[in-house]
C-alpha cells in the first residue's frame, strides 16, 4: 500500500511536470530564441522601474507612435507611471481629438483630456496598411503578452536587426531580423543611438531605448501586475496558514480512527 502511494505520488508529480514543461514549448517558432534579459518587473516581487517606463513612454511617443497605436490605454493610466495629475493633463492636451456630433450634428476637434484613449496614428487598419507598404503596424498595448517570449522577444526584436546572411534575399521595404518568425520584417529598424533625447541624464543608446520602451510596453500590457503580486503574497500566506490549521483539525479529528 505504502509503495503504491509513493508510486502514485511520483506519477502525479510527473503529470504536473509534464503539463508545466510541455505547455510553453508548443508555439516555438523557427526564429532564433531571444536571450533572457533582466527586467525590473520579473520575479515574484518585481515592479516596473518607473523612470525606465517614463523614458519608454517618451520613446513610444516620439518614435513608435508614428505608426503604432496603443488603443487600450487612456492618458489617465499614465498616472500609474508616476506622472503627476498636471503632467497627465498636459500630455493629454497635446493631442487633438475628434469628438461629436455636437448639437448641430457636426464633428469637432478639441484638445485631449486624461479620460481619452491614446490617439492612434491612423484612422483605421486599412489606412495604416496603406501607409506602410500594405502591412498593418499592430497595436502595441498587449504586445508583450501576445508574443512567445514576451518582453525578451520584444527587446530582442528591437535590437535584432542585422545584415541578411548571404543567400537570403530581402525584398524591397523589408528588413532582416533574426528574432522575427520568418526573419523578414516589414518594420524598418525603428531605433538608433540618440533616437530620443533623455532629460534625466540616462545615456541614450539604442539598447537603452529598447529596454525602456519594452518596460513601458510591459506595463501597458499588464498594468495590474504590481497589485496582483502584492495581493498574491497575502493570499498565499493566508492559504498556507489556513491549510496548516485545517491539517491540525484533521489530525485531531482522525486521532482515534483505527
Amino acid at each position, binding site marked *: *500500500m*505504502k509503495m503504491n502511494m509513493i508510486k502514485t505520488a511520483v*506519477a502525479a508529480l510527473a503529470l504536473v511536470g*509534464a503539463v508545466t514543461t510541455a*505547455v510553453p*514549448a508548443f*508555439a516555438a517558432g523557427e526564429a532564433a530564441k531571444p536571450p533572457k534579459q533582466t527586467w525590473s518587473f520579473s520575479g515574484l516581487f518585481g515592479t516596473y522601474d518607473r523612470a525606465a517606463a517614463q523614458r519608454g513612454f517618451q520613446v513610444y511617443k516620439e518614435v513608435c507612435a508614428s505608426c503604432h497605436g496603443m488603443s487600450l490605454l487612456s492618458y489617465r493610466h499614465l498616472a500609474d507611471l508616476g506622472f503627476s495629475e498636471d503632467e497627465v493633463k498636459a500630455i493629454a492636451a497635446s493631442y487633438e481629438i475628434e469628438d461629436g456630433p455636437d448639437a448641430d450634428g457636426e464633428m469637432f476637434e478639441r484638445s485631449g483630456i486624461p479620460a481619452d484613449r491614446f490617439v492612434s496614428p491612423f484612422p483605421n487598419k486599412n489606412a495604416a496598411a496603406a501607409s506602410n507598404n500594405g502591412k498593418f503596424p499592430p497595436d502595441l498595448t498587449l504586445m508583450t*503578452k501576445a508574443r512567445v517570449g514576451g518582453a525578451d522577444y520584444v527587446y530582442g526584436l528591437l535590437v535584432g536587426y542585422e545584415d541578411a546572411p548571404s543567400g537570403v534575399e530581402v525584398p524591397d521595404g523589408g528588413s532582416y531580423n533574426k528574432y522575427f518568425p520568418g526573419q523578414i520584417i516589414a518594420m524598418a529598424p525603428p531605433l538608433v543611438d540618440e533616437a530620443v533625447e533623455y532629460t534625466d541624464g540616462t545615456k541614450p543608446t539604442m539598447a537603452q531605448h529598447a529596454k525602456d520602451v519594452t518596460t513601458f510596453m510591459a506595463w501597458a500590457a499588464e498594468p495590474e501586475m504590481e497589485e496582483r*503580486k502584492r495581493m498574491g503574497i497575502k493570499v498565499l500566506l493566508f492559504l498556507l496558514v489556513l491549510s496548516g490549521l485545517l491539517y491540525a483539525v484533521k489530525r485531531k479529528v482522525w486521532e482515534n*480512527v483505527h
Partner: protein
Amino acid sequence: MDTNNMHPVMKWVEHRLPVFSFLDHSLGTQYPTPKNLNYWWNFGSLAGLVLVIMIISGIVLAMHYTPHVDHAFNSVERIMRDVNYGWLIRYIHMNGGSMFFIVVYIHMFRGLYFGSYQAPRELLWIIGVFILLAMMATAFMGYVLPWGQMSFWGATVITNLFSAIPLVGDSIVTLLWGGFSVDNPTLNRFFALHFLMPFVIVGLVVIHIWALHVHGSSNPTGIDVKSEQDTIGFHPYFTTKDLFGMGIFLIFFMFFVFYAPNFFGEPDNYIPADPLVTPAHIVPEWYFLPFYAILRAFTPDYIVYAWTPLAWIMEAKLAGVLAMFASILLLLFMPWLDGSKVRSCSFRPIMAMAFWLFFLNCLVLGYIGGKPAEGIFVTIGQFSTFYYFAHLLVIVPLVSRLERPKPVPDSINASVLKAAE
C-alpha cells in the same frame, strides 16, 4: 435524526421540510464512508469546489462582457483594466478552467486505478463521463469568447470537424456557425450556450452524487463495506479531510492566478481575431491535446486506417473525428471491458502496470497534440493513438480476465489495522 435537541426554529423547519436530516444523510454523521479512503479521494470535492468558483466568477464576468465580434476582445480588456478587480475575476475564471480539468482528470484516473467504475457503480461512472463531455463543450465555447486569434481559429478548426460527417456534415456546420463562417452569430450562440452548460453540469453532478450515495464511495482496497467497523461518518472525518485538501489545492490554483496567470494560455489569444490571418500553429487548450493528437493521427497513410476496412468506407478525416469521439465514449464501457472480480489495481499487479502505461501514453498524446504534425511527432502520435485503443479494447478485457489477483483483505477494517501495525 434526533430532533429533540434542536433549536425550536430548526425543529419547526425540519418538521415541514427535513433539510437538516437531508444534509446529515448527505454529508453528515449519517453518511457512512469507508475509513480507508486516501487523498486521491479528495478530487471529487475539489471538482465541486472548482465548479462553484467557475459559476460565480463566470456570472460576474458575464455582467461586463459584450458578445459581439467588434467588442468582445476589447470588453475583455476593459474587464482586465477598468473593472474593479476585473483582472482577478478573469484570471480566476481563465485558470479555473485548467484547474477543473486537472482535478477531473486525476479524479478519473483514480477511478480507473481503483476500479471505482465496477458494479454496482457503473451508472455513477457513466454519468461522470457525461460530465466530462459537458465540461469539454463548455470549455471549448468559453475559449472562443475573448475573440482572440486562437479563439477564432480554434473555433474554425473544431467546428469544421463536423463537416466530415457524410451527407449532413455541411448543414451541421452551417447550423453551428449560424452562417457560412465563424462570425457574430457563432459568438452569440456560443456565449448563450457557455452560460447555459454549467447549469447542465450542475444537474449532472446532482445525479452523479445521488448515484454515489446509493452504494457510497468505493475505496482503495476495492472490497465492499461489510460492517459498521469499516466506515466512519462523513462528518467530521471527511469534511475536515476535504477542507484540508481544498486549502492545498487553492494554494496551487492561486499561485497560477497571481504569479503565472497566462501560463496555460496561448500568447496568440491576446491578438484580436482576424479571419484573414491564420496563426502558424493552431493548438487547442492543453486539456484537449491528447484528443487532438488522436484526431490528427488519422492520415491517409496511417496503418490503422489504410490497411483496414476503415479505408473502404470513409475518408481519413472522418475516421479521425470518429476516433476522437470514440476515445472518450469508450470510457463509458469500462465497467464491462474490465471483467475482473477484484476492483482495485493494488491487488492486480499486471493491470496496475497496464494502468501506468496507459497513463504515460495519455501524457505522450498530450505532448504530441501540442507539436506540429510533422516528422517523428506524427509517427509517435500514431503509435500512441493505436496504444490508447489497444489498452481499452484488448489489454483491459484480456488482462482483467486472465490475471489472477493477489488475495484481498477480509475487510476494510482488517486492512486498516494491518497497515497500522
